[in-house]
Structure formats: structure tokens, C-alpha cells
């Protein structure tokens, strides 16, 4: 069965940051210049065409948008100023909505009001918990620690894992990708390696500093998570853990601060266009590191009891981050991109088996 052309999809994508779709006249310069595209995984032109025609199945079944790291070279080369890089970005936002079974990701992308209400509700809930716990430092911090662990479990188990399976269903099962079983196993190493290093982006023209910065944030973020959630940074007296926490917290907040500055300066293609979701992501990532840092300083200076409100703010930031931004916001790109690399690996093995590449 042929796919049905659906011009309304473009209208929908306008809500995901798409600005103009008809500037592209398909010269293919973007694909030619892209250092990540390869036979069997041609982008961004093909994706732009699928978007122009509103071919939902083609878009949903493609891993290509996730293979792009937004170096912006295609946009710089485009003779029509069609901004292919940003087009790919809007497709990624749209795909986040497609994969999400709850529908909340889409809702938050489309409606700023819904997102605002969500943030307010979480804020009220955290203050309500504080009220229930009579604003006692000890009890609150204990609750906070438990809450962090529960949220991680719930978000991964109930939302992100099903979403990834959905992505697998759309890109592999429905596209009838017949990869050999061995590829599923060898691909796992690929997946893990990419989750931590994202070293594919080194091929991009933007160079190694951007990769290094990104790499440090990922490592910093994972370590911060590890330190606070599993080593219980705020409650420990172990000096090594405390100093480790300081270092990674510092890294996260220095580099996210640099990210924010970049988006304000708009000097590079990658930072020129910022969707609200991009701002939320970098600002909350910054706040996360920053508030954690402050709280630990207050603990070490024994001032936390008099400044509990700061811990509550930290808790609010964490709750908003964990409940809203991680499962439904830009944070997911970390996960989807890594799995897209895994699925693309499967696809490539299938194509190789067919002798297509």
C-alpha cells in the first residue's frame, strides 16, 4: 500500500519548531556535505522530502534524524536558506512525541501553558510534601533521597522503556528490517560505547571541543546522578565522595552555563535557533548542578537548617526535571539517539546481508 500524502503534518510540525518547509528545492547539497550520512542512511534531504509530503510512516520508521548531531554545516551550505539542520531538529522533537505512549511529550511541546501548569503542579506538590514533613531538614532530605530513586525507577520502567520498545517497533519491526541475531548482540557494545562517548559526533565539522564539552556534561551528569542518588552525597561524611560530588557538580554547572551563553550569543548554527524545550533543558541542567552545589556547601558550612528553602528549591528543580523533563522533554534525545545508533546498526547489518550496501 502506498503512503498517503498528508499536508497537515507540516502544520503539526510548526508546533515543534518548524518554520518553513518549502524553501528546499532538493539540490541535495546538504546530504552531500554531511559527514555522517552514508549509503542506506541518507539525510537530511530525504527526511525533508518526507516532511514536505507528510509521509508519517517514512518519518516514524526512520532512525536518520537521530544520527544527526546538528553541526549545522548543511544549513551553512544550503543555497536556499532552507535550514535543513533545524528541520531535522523539529523532526526529532516530533519523533519524541511519536514514540511517547503517554502523549505528554507531544502536549508539552505543543502547549507552553500545559508545560507551565505541569511545572507549577510539581512545585506545589514539593511544597506540600515539605508542609506534610513540617519542613524538617532531616526528614525532607531523607524523603528527597527516596524520591529520587523512585522517580528514576518509575520513569525508566513505565515511560522510557516502553517508548524505546515503541521506537524499536516502528523503526525495525514495521520497516521489516531482517537483521541477523548476532547483530543484536554485537550491537549492544556499540550502544553502550555510544551512550557514554557519543563519539560519532567527532566526525562532525564542529570539531572536537564541542564533543569534549558534551562528553564532560554527560559524564558529569551521570556521575552527579551516581554520587547523589547512590552514594547519597548530601548525607555522607566521606570526604572522597564529597569532593567527587563537588567536582562533578562543578563540571555540570560550568559547562551548562557555557551552553546557555552559547544559545544567548547565537554565534554558531547549533545555537542559533532555540525552541523553548532547548532553553528548559539547558537551564534546568544548569540549575540542577548549581543548586546541588549550593546545598552541599550549606551542608558543609552547617547553614542548611537556616536555609532549608534552598534545599526545597533544589528538590523542586529535581522533581520538575525528573518528572517532566526527563521522560517528556529534550533529555530523551540522549536515550533515543543512543538507541537509534543501535537500531541503525541492525539496519546496516540487514542491508549488508541483502547485499544492498
Amino acid at each position, binding site marked *: 500500500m*502506498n*503512503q*498517503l*500524502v498528508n*499536508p*497537515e503534518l*507540516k*502544520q503539526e510540525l510548526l508546533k515543534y519548531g518548524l518554520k*518553513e518547509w*518549502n524553501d528546499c528545492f*532538493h539540490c541535495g547539497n546538504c546530504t552531500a556535505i554531511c559527514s555522517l550520512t552514508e549509503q542506506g542512511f541518507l539525510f537530511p534531504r*530525504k527526511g525533508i*522530502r*518526507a516532511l*514536505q*509530503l*507528510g*509521509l508519517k510512516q*517514512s518519518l516514524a520508521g526512520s532512525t536518520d534524524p537521530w544520527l544527526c548531531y546538528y553541526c549545522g554545516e548543511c544549513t551553512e551550505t544550503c543555497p536556499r536558506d532552507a535550514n535543513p539542520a533545524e528541520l531535522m531538529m523539529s523532526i526529532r522533537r516530533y519523533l519524541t512525541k511519536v514514540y511517547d505512549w503517554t502523549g505528554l511529550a507531544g502536549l508539552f511541546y505543543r502547549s507552553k501553558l500545559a508545560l507551565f501548569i505541569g511545572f507549577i503542579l510539581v512545585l506545589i506538590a514539593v511544597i506540600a510534601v515539605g508542609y506534610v514533613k513540617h519542613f524538617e531538614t532531616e526528614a525532607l532530605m531523607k524523603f528527597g533521597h527516596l524520591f529520587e530513586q523512585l522517580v528514576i525507577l518509575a520513569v525508566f520502567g513505565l515511560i522510557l522503556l516502553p517508548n524505546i520498545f515503541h521506537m524499536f517497533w516502528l523503526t525495525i519491526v514495521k520497516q521489516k528490517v531482517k537483521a541477523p541475531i548476532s547483530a543484536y548482540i554485537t550491537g549492544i557494545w556499540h550502544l553502550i560505547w555510544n551512550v557514554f562517548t557519543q563519539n560519532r559526533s567527532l566526525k562532525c565539522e564542529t570539531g572536537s571541543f564541542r564533543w569534549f564539552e558534551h562528553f564532560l556534561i554527560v559524564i558529569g551528569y551521570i556521575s552527579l546522578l551516581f554520587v547523589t542518588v547512590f552514594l547519597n552525597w548530601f548525607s555522607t561524611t566521606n570526604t572522597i565522595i564529597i569532593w567527587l560530588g563537588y567536582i562533578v557538580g562543578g563540571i555540570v554547572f560550568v559547562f551548562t552555563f557555557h551552553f546557555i551563553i552559547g544559545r544567548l550569543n547565537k554565534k554558531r548554527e547549533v545555537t542559533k535557533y532555540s525552541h523553548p524545550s532547548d532553553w528548559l533543558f539547558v537551564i534546568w541542567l544548569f540549575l540542577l548542578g548549581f543548586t546541588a552545589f549550593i546545598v552541599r556547601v550549606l551542608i558543609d558550612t552547617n547553614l542548611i537548617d537556616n536555609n532549608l528553602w534552598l534545599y526545597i528549591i533544589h528538590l523542586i528543580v529535581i522533581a520538575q526535571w525528573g518528572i517532566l523533563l526527563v521522560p517528556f522533554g529534550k533529555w530523551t534525545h540522549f536515550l533515543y539517539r543512543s538507541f537509534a545508533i543501535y537500531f541503525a546498526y541492525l539496519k546496516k547489518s540487514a542491508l549488508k546481508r541483502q547485499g544492498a550496501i
Partner: protein
Amino acid sequence: MEEPRIGVYVCWCGTNIAKMVDVEHVSKELEKLPDVIISRDYKYMCSDPGQDLIIKDIKENNLNRIVVSACSPRIHELTFHKAMEKAGLNPYLFEMANIREQDSWVHTDRKEATEKAKSLILGAINKVRWHEALEKRSVDINPDTLIIGGGIAGLTAALEIADAGKKVYLVEKTDKLGGHAANIDLTFPFMNSVQQMLNPKIEKVINHPNIELFLETRIDEAFGYVGNFETTIKKENEEIQLKFGNIIVATGLKTFDPGGIENYGYGKLPDVVTSSEFERMLKEGKIQTNAGNDPRHVAIIHCVGSRNSDFHEYCSRTCCMTALKYANQLRSALPEANIYEAYADMMAFGKGCEELYLATSRKNVTFLMFDQKDNLPKIRKADSKHNFEMLIEINDKLSGVTVDVPADLVILMVAQEAHENAKEVAHAVGVSMCGNAFYIEKHPKLDPVATTTDGVYVVGSCQAPKDIPDSVSQARAAAARILASISFGSVEVEVTTAVVNENLCCGCQTCINVCPYTAISYDEEKQVSVVNEILCKGCGTCGSTCPTGAIRSRHFTDQQILSQIEGLLSTVLELEEA
């Protein structure tokens, strides 16, 4: 006869000729020939210095015959005629050898091409020896003009000439004026109302004292020559004799019937309409499906019958922009509808047209590119589970994916083709047709409204599909040409006519039977045939028919051509020996 003193000029035409023909060698070889006084080669003979070279040589060396071997005589013969006149030599003492179009451009071996050039020039030299001076004759011009066709081109030309105070006979085969333009709502790319432009023109033509209008009228064959034509026109049962000096053919074209293209289902699917039918919907202000609903999906298919070897190979020129115009009009009329343009290539040249394309693409119109050669879109009826009428299967070239486009209304941008009676008119006025039955202009670049028959002009879409501005400019150009010749008062006529040698004529009258122009009559008293040199157009058929050789076709006499054959088949060496 005076001793021939021949000047031979071999043109390089930049590298066009010199690349394939060793022009220097050729000109040197030819200099050895008897009677060839001067033989030169030069970069561009047609340029002013090139012509001055000939003029100077004629004056200094007392040349009395000139051969220029360059491009086709159809391009530059007149140029050199003028140069000859400037030098005080009769222009008919001149011959051209075509070593570009018929030699350097069509051959790949330099040696062979050079040999061929030599032999062609030898032929020309041999022919020019026998050329004779011919005196130009001129006749008075009848200041009236016949215009065939009352579309926008015919109307414009009629008004232009009539406003200058000259009489116009305007003949239209239908019962109303305006032609195809009258069926159009708005024009591309600026969306002007056609009615506002056309109606005052029609009104003015009808009431113009200098325009005699014949509606529902057809013309018979026009006899005569530039300045003095006459014909009979038939209106109902009445026959009217008209005399006029010039003719403008503005017969326009018709639209292609897409019923023959099975893929599109025209005639079977009620909501597949042609562009003309859709134009009518626009004029009535009612865009609806056959069932009377507002269409939610409107698809426009380009190139229906155009640019396809099964129908017409040419581009119909106006359909792409008309289709974009439709998209704009549809967007205003049905803001919520989905509009699709399925095109093969977007032809958007001309003032404001690419801009229209860009502007349209910003109005949420989905463009799909199909392969016109062997993968035409296919329209089928949608089954009841869909909430639209039809599905168009298109292999989208830009994605390589075969997709289905939903449609409630499909507009076929049908090709523009020549009238089925284009041939009749062509014969009546003596213009030639190209393979697509459009009329051929005298020169595609330098003389786009005149034809090979002097005094007959082709304007508007009978020459090729055209938009309104182009038709109007052609009409005005032809009018200007005619007014110029009328104001000059007389016109030079063909002097390369036939002439009878009364001493040789036996009075058999065979020539009278073959003459297509009834230019030969029989003088009972002298018992010989006599050629009316005004009516004669110089085809030479009588000359080759005459059993006694009494008729000479001037400029193409037996002597000249036989001599040319001799030259063509000889070699330089042989001639030298002779």
C-alpha cells in the same frame, strides 16, 4: 557578356567554420582559378569590416562577381546584397556557398569538410559567372489589411492599424470576439482581470470606423502578392470580395483533449476536469465537485499532453504558471483545502513568474514531481472508507517513493495545440507549418512575426503557444511592420521571376497549365506565352516544364545550375588544367 572578374571570400565565422575547414588553404587554392581575381579569408565576413573589405575590393579591382562562402544564404544573403549595392554593383551578381550549416557544423573530419567546402565554393563560382544583373521592381501597396482571428492578438493588431487611420478587415470564424482570453478569469502572474482588459478592446473594435468586422466568417484562398492581395470571404450564403495589401494571421490555438490519456480517467471520473473547465468554474465563482460539495483536496496535474512523445513533445508554455495561478485562487476561495501540484518540471521563466512560484510555495501548497516520460500519475476512485473521492498514485521523483495523493477535484493542465484547420489557413495565405502544425516565422530570432511569404505575418498562439503579453507584443510588432510598409507606399517585389524568350516559344501552353499563380497567359496575336512578372513568384516550375527551353527562371537559369553542377563535381586541379 563582360569578362567575369570574380572575388571570392571565405569566412572563418570565428571558429565555427575555421575549426573544421582549412579556410586559408581553401582561399589560396581558389585563387588559382581562372577569372578569380581575388580570394581572401576573413574572421567575420558579415561584420562591417568584412563587408567593407568586399566593397573596397570591388572598387579597387573592378570586380563584377562576388562569391561569399560562409553561413546559409537564408541568414546573410541580404546583408551582402546591401554591401554590393553600396559598392555600386548589382546585388544579383552575387552567390553564397553554405560552408557552415551544410559543412563545418555537420562534419567531423577536417580533411573531408575542407574538400567539401572547396567543391561547394567551386559550384558557386561557376554559377556566379552566369549571373546577370536584375533590376528591382516595386509596386504600390494597398493600405488595407486583412486580419484573420479575433482573439487578443487579432484585436490588438486591428486597433493598432485602425487607430493609425488605415482600414482593417477583421475576420473571425466564431460569433464573438475575444478568443481564449475571453474565457480566462485572471491572468498570471499579477492577477489582473482579463475582462477589464478585453471588454473595452472588443467594444472599441466593434465601433471603430476603420474596422470592418466579419463574424462567423471563413476566408478562401488569398491570391496576389505583398501589397496587392485579394480573397473571397464567405459569410452565411454571401460571398464578399476583399482587396488588401497585408495579412495578419492570428488564428490562435485550441486545447488538448485529455480523453486519450487513460491514466487520468477524464470523461469517466466526474471530478477530473480540464483547465478550461476549471477556468469556467472560477469565472462563475463556484468551485465545487460534481456532487455539489466544496472540495477539501484539490490536485492540479501539469503537462497533460505536453512534453511527452506520445502527444506533444513541446512545452505548452502557459500551463505551469496558470496552474500556480489556480493554486493561489484556490487558496483564497478554499482557505482550508489541501492543494497539490503534480508537475514534471516547473517552467517559471518570464517577468514575475519565478516570484509567483515562490509566493505560491509559501501558501501551503504541496508540490510533487513526477516522471513525464514513463511514469505518469494514475487516478483511481477511492473506496468508501476514505473521506475523499479519488486517489492519485504518483511516483514522486524527489523522494523516490510512490505515494497516494487524496483528491476531491483534479484539474488537468491540458496542452495547447494547433487548430485542426490550421492547414487550411496556411494554404489560404501561403505560410508554412512546423511539425506541430504551428506556423513558421521567417526567422526564429531575427524575424519572428514575418513569414516566408512577404506581406503575411503570424502573431499570437498560431505561431506557438503564448501568453497574453507575448501575443500582444507580436500583434503590435506586425502592425508596426505593416504601417511602416504602408507609409512607405510601395514595396519591392520578387525579381527572380520567369521570362519567356518569344523567339523560342512554340506556343504549346504547357507552362500555363503548371503555373500555380495563373501568372502566365497566352498572347493570341504573337502566339506565345507571356509571364505577368507581378504575379510570378519565381518557383521555376514553368522553366523546367518548357519543352523548347524558352522560359528562363531568372537567377536559377539552366546555364547557371548546369554550370554549378559542373563546378560542384570538379576539383580545383581539373579546372586548372581546363
